[in-house]
C-alpha cells in the first residue's frame, strides 16, 4: 500500500487561514495588529528571498510587517541598538534576525539581545531552556511545523517511538523536546550513532534533519511508520538535461529517498511541499501567539506546542 502523502503545503495554508482569522479578531475585539519585524544584514541572495517571502505572507495575514535592511558592514553596536528599539516598540510583537549574519557580527550575542518574549524564531538561550524544561516558550518554527503535521496526521502521539536523526540546535534538539512533550519515547540519532538503520527500523516516527541528500532509504523504515523529511538538498538532475547556461539541471530532494521510503512508510512528507512551507506559517503563528501573550490575552489553540 502506498504511503499517505502529508501535504505540508496545503496544511500551511490552513495554518495561515487560522492566523488570519485570529489577526482579524485581535483587530476587531482589541484594536491590536500583530507586528513582525525582520532584520536583514547584507545582501545574501537566499536570505533576501526568505525575507521577501516572510514579509509578503505577514501582510497577507493582515499583520504589520517591518523590514529593516542594513548594510553588510553594519556595526554590532548599530545592530544591537536597532534590536533594543524593536524590543521597546509596542507595535512589534515578533523580531526575526535573518541568519547567517556577516562574519564580523556575533550571532549568539545578537540573538540573545532579542527580548525572549519577541523571539519568534525561538533561538534565544532562555527560550531554549524554557522548552527543554517544559515551560511556556517561543518554539522554533521548523520543528513546530513538524509537530503540527504529526499531530494532524496521528491525533495523539503519546507512547509512540520516535527517532530524530540529527542533533542540530535549530531542528533536531527542539524536535526531540517537542516529541517528548507529546509523550513519545524519543531517541536522537546522529553522526556518532552506531547502527542508525536498525534504530530507525524500530521507530513509529522518523524525523530526518541532517542535510544529507537521500541518506534514509526504504530499508531503514518500519512498515507503516511516519516519515517527516526536514532536509532540503539540491542535487544534479542529469535526467532533466542541461539548462540554457549549459549546466546540468538540478532538483530538490530531502534527507530521505522518497520513492523507496514511500513504498514502506504509512505516511511521508514530500520535498518540496512537505515541511518547508510549514516553517513560515509557524513564524506567523508564533507572532500571533507572542502578540496575545504580550497583551495578556488567551493564546489561540493549536498554533503552538
Amino acid at each position: 500500500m502506498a504511503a499517505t502523502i502529508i501535504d505540508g503545503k496545503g496544511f500551511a495554508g490552513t495554518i495561515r487561514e487560522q492566523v488570519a482569522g485570529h489577526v482579524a479578531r485581535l483587530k476587531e475585539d482589541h484594536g491590536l495588529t500583530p507586528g513582525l519585524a525582520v532584520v536583514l544584514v547584507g545582501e545574501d541572495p537566499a536570505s533576501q528571498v526568505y525575507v521577501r517571502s516572510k514579509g509578503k505572507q505577514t501582510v497577507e495575514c493582515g499583520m504589520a510587517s517591518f523590514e529593516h535592511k542594513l548594510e553588510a558592514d553594519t556595526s554590532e553596536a548599530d545592530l544591537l541598538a536597532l534590536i533594543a528599539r524593536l524590543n521597546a516598540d509596542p507595535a512589534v510583537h515578533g523580531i526575526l534576525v535573518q541568519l547567517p549574519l556577516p562574519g564580523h557580527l556575533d550571532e549568539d550575542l545578537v540573538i540573545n539581545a532579542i527580548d525572549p518574549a519577541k523571539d519568534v524564531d525561538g533561538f534565544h538561550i532562555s527560550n531554549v531552556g524554557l522548552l527543554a524544561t517544559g515551560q511556556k516558550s517561543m518554539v522554533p518554527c521548523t520543528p513546530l511545523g513538524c509537530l503540527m503535521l504529526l499531530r494532524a496526521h496521528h491525533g495523539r502521539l503519546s507512547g509512540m517511538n520516535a527517532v530524530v536523526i540529527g542533533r542540530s540546535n535549530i531542528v533536531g534538539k527542539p524536535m526531540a523536546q517537542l516529541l517528548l512533550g507529546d509523550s513519545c519515547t524519543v531517541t536522537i540519532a546522529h553522526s556518532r550513532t552506531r547502527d542508525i538503520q536498525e534504530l530507525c527500523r524500530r521507530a513509529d516516527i522518523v524525523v530526518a534533519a541532517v542535510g544529507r541528500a537521500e541518506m534514509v532509504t526504504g530499508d531503514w523504515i518500519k512498515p507503516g511508520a511516519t516519515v517527516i523529511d526536514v532536509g532540503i538538498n539540491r542535487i544534479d538532475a542529469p535526467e532533466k538535461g542541461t539548462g540554457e547556461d549549459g549546466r546540468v539541471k538540478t532538483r530538490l530532494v530531502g534527507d530521505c529517498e522518497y520513492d523507496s521510503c514511500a513504498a514502506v512508510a504509512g505516511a511521508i512528507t514530500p520535498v518540496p511541499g512537505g515541511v518547508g512551507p510549514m516553517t513560515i506559517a509557524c513564524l506567523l503563528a508564533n507572532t500571533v501567539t507572542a502578540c496575545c501573550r504580550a497583551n495578556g490575552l488567551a493564546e489561540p489553540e493549536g498554533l503552538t506546542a
Partner: protein
Amino acid sequence: MNIVVKDPRLLMGRLVRDRILSEVASYVNKAGRIGKLVSISIGEVPEIMIYVRNQAAAARAAGLGFDQQLWSADIPQEACKAAIQAMNDDPEVLGVILQRPVPAHINVRSLQSAIHPLKDVEGMNPASIGNIVYNDVAMAPCTAAAAVELIRETGLTLEGLEVVMVGHSEIVGKPAANMLMAAGATVTVCHHMTRSVAMHSRRADVVLVAVGKPHLIGADMIKPGAVVIDIGINQMTGADGAVTIVGDVDTDAVSQVAGWITPVPGGVGPVTVAILMRNAVNAHRRQTDAGWIG
C-alpha cells in the same frame, strides 16, 4: 575479624566525591580570595536542613565559604527577588543556591530566573539549561552531572554508546540526556508513557533511572555488562517497621547482570554535592573571564 572485599561492580560515590572535592580544594587554594556560596532556605523545612548540612560540610571540605540564610516563610516574592538581585551584584557572592521546596506563595521559577547564569551553581535558570542544550555543560544541574560523572568513572568512551534514560524530569532526566548527547552518546528518553521500557533498556550500554519507583528496573531489563546508574531515592518500610532507603533498581538482582552499578545510598547522592562545589569553581572561572572579579 571480617575481611570486607569491595565488589568491583559497585560504583562508589564516596570515592568520586572525595576526588572532586580535593580538586576543588586545590583550585580554591590557588585562587586565594574566592567568594562564598549563599544557600537560601525560605521557611523551615526539615528535609532541606539535611541537604544544607551536607552542602555546608562539602563546602568546608573544599575550603569554600558557605552562608546559610534562612528567610522567613512569609517573605514576599518581590523581597526575595530583590535580595537575589543584590547577590548578583555582590562580588563576595560566588554562587546562589535556592533550596526547594519553597512556600506556596513563592514562584520558584521566577526566582530561579532571577539568579544570574554566572552565579547559577545549581543550573536552574532557563538560560543555564539552554546552555546545556547547546553543549555548554560547565554548570549543569548537579544530580544529572553526578550521574554522567559516574558513567565516566567506568572508563568507557561515551561517544557512540547507546544510553537509555528512564525518566524525563526537568532537573534530572532531560539535562542528563542533553549532557550525554553532547558527549556523543545515542540517547533514548523513556518515561511513564513509554510502551515497553525493557525493549529499550535491554539494548542499552548504559541505563540511567530517575523515576522514584522502588525496584522498577529488574535484572531482565539489563544487557549483560551494561552500566546501571540508579538516581532514585525511595523510602521503604519493611514488615518489621524498619525504614530503608532503596533506589529505582533492584540492585541485588541487577548487579548479577550489570557490569557496573551505583548503590543506593552511596552512589549518585554523594557525588551530587561535590558537583555543586565544582560548579562553584566553574562559576569563579566564568566570572573571572567575564571581568566581574579580578
